[in-house]
């Protein structure tokens, strides 16, 4: 009888398949079901090759196999998640929502993973890729200077890493990221920008955070950001500082980070997709650890 947290993955596209590989690599998690709607998808074929149970019955498969599932990663779409959540909730399972549906509590593992695990919240929303990259930085700044007037994050991602779903949901991406920035940094106002860069070879994901603060304490901010980066690199190995905290125009602090993906299923330049998956697995592992502790 394994001690691993039993995870189902709903949605067998690129995100779901990359999640699958990360889950399988984890010592604390196992994938008991990989469910989608299209057996023909590459993800399904990959899962079969890895010996994972697959189903094309989507959410109904979760219902059928509820007794071997603890957590459901929903990597489908916001609209679909809104339909799935009542079912998952009814089964008493935890949902880790990779979509911008925003039904649950925002989670950035480096900031509030423990709090989320302890709170008994059952719908955990992973915000957005830009959110996972920028919100921890914003929070690190806020720890030093808690009077942030305005916070902004601008992410540029490779055009090739943005599929039809991302492109159709730019507005949701922006709004969700802005909401998370405000929540975790206490800033009065926030702005999120997303740029698709078509350069070939594809560019790595890059995120710049700007914070407007009166009298920023750059030394303390540097220390806080470095501490946060250590926490993030625990679950996102490819997260690195590109431009350290720099003061421009007296009251603006600017920081640029780069995210290189693991290359599990998605190409390495798709750090934007990788970071949100790493974060999701990160919080799942924290849930698993908590469960083990409770059990021991």
């Amino acid at each position, binding site marked *: 009888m394994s001690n691993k947290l039993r995870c189902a993955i709903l949605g067998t596209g690129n995100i779901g398949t990359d999640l699958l590989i990360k889950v399988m690599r984890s010592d604390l998690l196992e994938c008991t079901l990989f469910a989608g*709607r*299209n057996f*023909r*998808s590459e993800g399904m074929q990959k899962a079969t090759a890895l010996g994972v149970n697959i189903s*094309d019955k989507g959410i109904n498969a979760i219902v059928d196999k509820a007794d071997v599932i603890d957590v459901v990663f929903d990597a489908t779409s916001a609209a679909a998640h809104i*339909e799935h959540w009542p079912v998952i909730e009814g089964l008493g399972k935890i949902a880790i929502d990779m979509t911008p549906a925003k039904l649950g509590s925002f989670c950035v593992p480096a900031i509030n993973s423990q709090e989320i695990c302890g709170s008994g919240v059952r719908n955990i929303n992973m915000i957005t890729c830009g959110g996972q990259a920028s919100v921890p930085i914003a929070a690190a700044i806020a720890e030093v200077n808690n009077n942030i007037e305005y916070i902004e994050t601008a992410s540029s991602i490779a055009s090739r890493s943005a599929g*039809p779903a991302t*492109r159709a949901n730019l507005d949701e991406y922006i709004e969700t990221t802005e909401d998370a920035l405000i929540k975790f940094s206490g800033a009065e106002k926030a702005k999120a920008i997303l740029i698709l860069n078509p350069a070939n070879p594809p560019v790595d994901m890059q995120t710049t955070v700007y914070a407007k603060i009166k009298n920023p304490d750059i030394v303390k901010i540097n220390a806080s950001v470095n501490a946060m980066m250590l926490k993030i690199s625990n679950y996102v190995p490819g997260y690195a500082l590109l431009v350290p905290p720099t003061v421009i125009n007296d009251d603006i602090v600017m920081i640029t980070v780069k995210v290189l993906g693991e290359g599990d299923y998605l190409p390495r330049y798709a750090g934007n997709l990788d970071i949100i998956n790493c974060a999701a697995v990160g919080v799942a592992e924290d849930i698993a650890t908590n469960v083990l502790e409770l059990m021991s």
Partner: protein
Amino acid sequence: MSINVNKQIKEDCLGSLKLQPDLVAQLKDQNITVIGGTGFIGTWIAELVAIVNDTFDGNIILELLGRSTAVWATKHPHLCRDDIILRAQDVRSPFGIREETTLIIYAAAIADPSIHASDPYKVYQTNVGGIENALRAASRLPIIARFLNVSSGLAVAGSTTEAISERNIGILDFTRIQNMYAQSRRTAESVASIFGSQYRIPVTTARAFTFIGPYQSIDAPWAINNFIRDAITGNDIRIRGDGSTRRSYLYGSDAAVWLLKILVAGNNGDIYNVGGEEVISHSEVAYALSKLCKKNPKIVFTGKSASADRKYDFFPDLSFSKSSLNLNQAFDMKLSLERSIQWHSRIILK
């Protein structure tokens, strides 16, 4: 209010049926599966089956396969009945059909131009991969009376001002991405021929032109949708170009009756155009809508392009459909527009 609309739809179905006196008998006791059954065509066919069963004791069983069956069920509670079986299915994945089915309609293709632009791969998978899965499913049935592929007149249209006949082959630059949709329809028809030849499946093709009426989603960016929305909201009706582009429109109940007639009485390997007879330009449609709506919106012609002399009229030559199966329209443009306005007003002006 909604009771009236449903009643009207039932009456329209009966009206269309009147022009096909043999059809009810031909449909009696049949088991039909519509793949892509939660769209415009599937929903109208469901209405027809319901009315035939209720009024004429048709004893038809209809299976509808679609992606969003749960949503469809909540939208059309009056169509959730024992004789209409709903099954959630994405056609890109292999699937099976009810064993009792002997008549199949494939109507799952994606026709929304904004999806063609943004996700051509999905369109290809659905239009080509989907019909392949459907034909495979059909080939496993004990008895297949007919497989009807609802294709599109756009497969063979091009730049034209003439009625498009089934015998048009049309020249298509398949290397250009903007021709991907038409190419996917052609490929789907080829795939159907393959199964017709190699697996002995009796395949018939219907080439759909423009349909109109309730159950049409107003969101797909077709000209007619834009005009209807503009008319209802009272915004200026904006017509791109000079409005001379011509179409013809077939009302939903007529379309459903025609397709069912082709299904039960069409010939293997034949292609039938399904569309309206009355050829009407965009500006004529806009004026008609404007007159029908209380708000009497203005017509605005947007900029004329340098290529304005290239015409893209789109309407069928119906001589074969008429002569072989006696397919005729019960409802004209005026009624079609009235029904559409009533239908969409409820939704848009909520």
